[in-house]
């Protein structure tokens, strides 16, 4: 088909404008959906906030089927925080090691397989990790937990963190599984950030007689630290929101304790676990309110993470 100049005006431009606005719709859907999530979920939570008020966040008891039902989210918020914290503490060193090994140490032919390795971990569905955690890992961890608990027995602080072992399903088990799941996320972003470190900086460090490790701490890390912080925060947000794997291995009994071997519960896992038996309007509303709490918490973490990453990327583009 040949195009003539006259085609440029007239009908063609109408179609062009239609196309342009329809792409705008595609983008705007994201904003609309986010706004709708916030609106619908808060409106459905209002029932529980009317009956419980802000006590919902400070009440530790969760007794939805008692004669006088009590709906408190505190122990679930605690469980979400502690498992996400454990996950991040365990995942960060491994992720950084992986990212640095892939970009700084590995020979060229090994880089691609290493990237595929981390991507494969990301492809495994979370429910499969949960299944593996509950049937394979948890029973095998009990002995290890008991040993660990024995070592720290009698030492102040540590003995309460590594306290009595009740079962394989615990805060720590959930944290372990979550750590595996967020490792590919942190790794791939950290790798991207580290790869933007200018070759001249690295060569400069090596030319000054630095060892490879000194080159990493002296040239690569200062350059990448902002982006890595953002990557870790994204991992934290993911760990907080991850549902099914945590629901299967956390033990599903709301508790607030420093003991990481205790079974507990978290916001997403209680929603998933108790949804089926939630028949009263109040309980449904309470579970949706926990969803709202989770939404707001992850929103804050992701807002901050996105802002940090965007700023770091901008600065790095300026540097290289």
């Amino acid at each position, binding site marked *: 088909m040949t195009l*003539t100049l006259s085609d440029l005006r007239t009908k063609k431009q109408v179609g062009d404008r239609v*196309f*342009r606005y329809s792409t705008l719709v*595609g983008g705007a859907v994201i904003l609309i959906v*986010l706004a709708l999530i916030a609106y619908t979920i808060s409106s459905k939570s209002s029932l529980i906030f009317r009956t419980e008020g802000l006590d919902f966040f400070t009440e530790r008891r969760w007794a939805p089927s008692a004669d006088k039902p009590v709906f408190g989210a505190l122990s679930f918020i605690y469980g979400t925080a502690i498992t996400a914290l454990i996950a991040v503490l365990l995942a960060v060193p*491994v992720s950084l090691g992986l990212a640095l090994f892939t970009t700084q140490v590995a020979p060229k032919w090994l880089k691609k397989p290493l990237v595929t390795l981390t991507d494969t971990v990301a492809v495994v569905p979370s429910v499969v990790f949960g299944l*593996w955690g509950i049937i394979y890992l948890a029973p095998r961890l009990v002995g290890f937990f008991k040993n660990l608990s024995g070592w720290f027995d009698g030492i102040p602080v540590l003995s309460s963190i590594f306290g009595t072992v009740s079962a394989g399903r615990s805060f720590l088990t959930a944290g372990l599984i979550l750590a595996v799941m967020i490792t590919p996320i942190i790794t791939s972003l950290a790798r991207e950030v580290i790869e933007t470190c200018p070759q001249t900086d690295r060569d400069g460090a090596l030319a000054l007689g630095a060892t490879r490790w000194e080159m990493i701490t002296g040239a690569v890390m200062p350059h990448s630290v902002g982006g890595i912080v953002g990557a870790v925060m994204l991992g934290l947000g993911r760990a907080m929101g991850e549902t099914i794997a945590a629901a299967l291995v956390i033990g599903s009994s709301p508790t607030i304790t420093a003991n990481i071997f205790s079974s507990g519960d978290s916001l997403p896992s209680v929603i998933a676990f108790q*949804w*089926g038996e939630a028949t009263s309007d109040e309980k449904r509303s309470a579970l949706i309110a926990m969803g709202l709490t*989770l939404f707001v918490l992850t929103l804050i973490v992701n807002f901050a993470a996105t802002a940090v990453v965007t700023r770091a990327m901008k600065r790095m583009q300026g540097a290289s």
Partner: protein
Amino acid sequence: MTTSTPSLSELTPTGPRQVQVSDLAGVGGRRRAKNAVMTALMGMSVAVILVVLILVLWTVVSKGWSIVVGMFPDWFTEDIQLSPRRPGPGMKAAIVGTIITTAMASAIAIPLGIAGAVYLNEYGKRGLFARILRFFTSVMAGVPSIVMGLFIYVFWVVPRGIDGLNGFSGALALACLMLPIIVRSTEEMLKLVPQNLRDASFALGATGSRTTLGIVIPNASPGIISGCLLAIARAAGETAPLIFTIGAAKQTNWNVFDGTNTSLSLQIYANAKESFATAQERAWGAALTLIVLAVLFTAAARILSARISKQS
């Protein structure tokens, strides 16, 4: 930058060991030891993740194999056993459910996602609205999948009552999950299309829409396709958004729009919670089926995108 001249680290493939100046200072030994220790630790993190991945996959394959193969072909052709206590026969309902809900979700999310990415990269560019949109796309990618499920439950299922529990509602929740992933990966791919291709198209008198549809998207298509396939793989494995939206069927239901449905992920979740060995076996079988489906899919994607990139 340094792409034309070989970098120093490439010239010294054994690493900084050949930088000997430090040895003259007399502290080389300690520094070198530290370097070796840290390198070993980095290598260990590779080993850790490799061991975990192999353990997970090996457990799934070894435990799932006996039931999937042992019940062949019933596993793929029979509906799901009603009682968790009794052994088997099949998983057909879940396989069908996973395929149709994921396909429906893709049909919703992929056109919208690509359109959104085209807007960001071709029209919005660095404008204020585009920057806001980009920011919220990242934010939406971080919204927990269970919140998406609750959202569709409140927004779509509740107004329709018991009829609202069907494959389409599940697909809507999955589509919400896929949308930001597709927008982000597609925009990355559109960015890579050289600007002079667009300029050439415009210079020939093509309109913006023809340039985008005829030049930009075809050029970026291998990348766009593999980004979409990753999003599909992610959605096929999701459980949390389906708990509230899809119901709990055990019979095969090919109709996305009517009647409750189920999925492989839901079956894994439900059976993993049971203490009966028969249920757990079913969970392993479903896990193996899900992983094989994902692998087949990814492999098909690789071949497809390789073929397309060879053509262009």
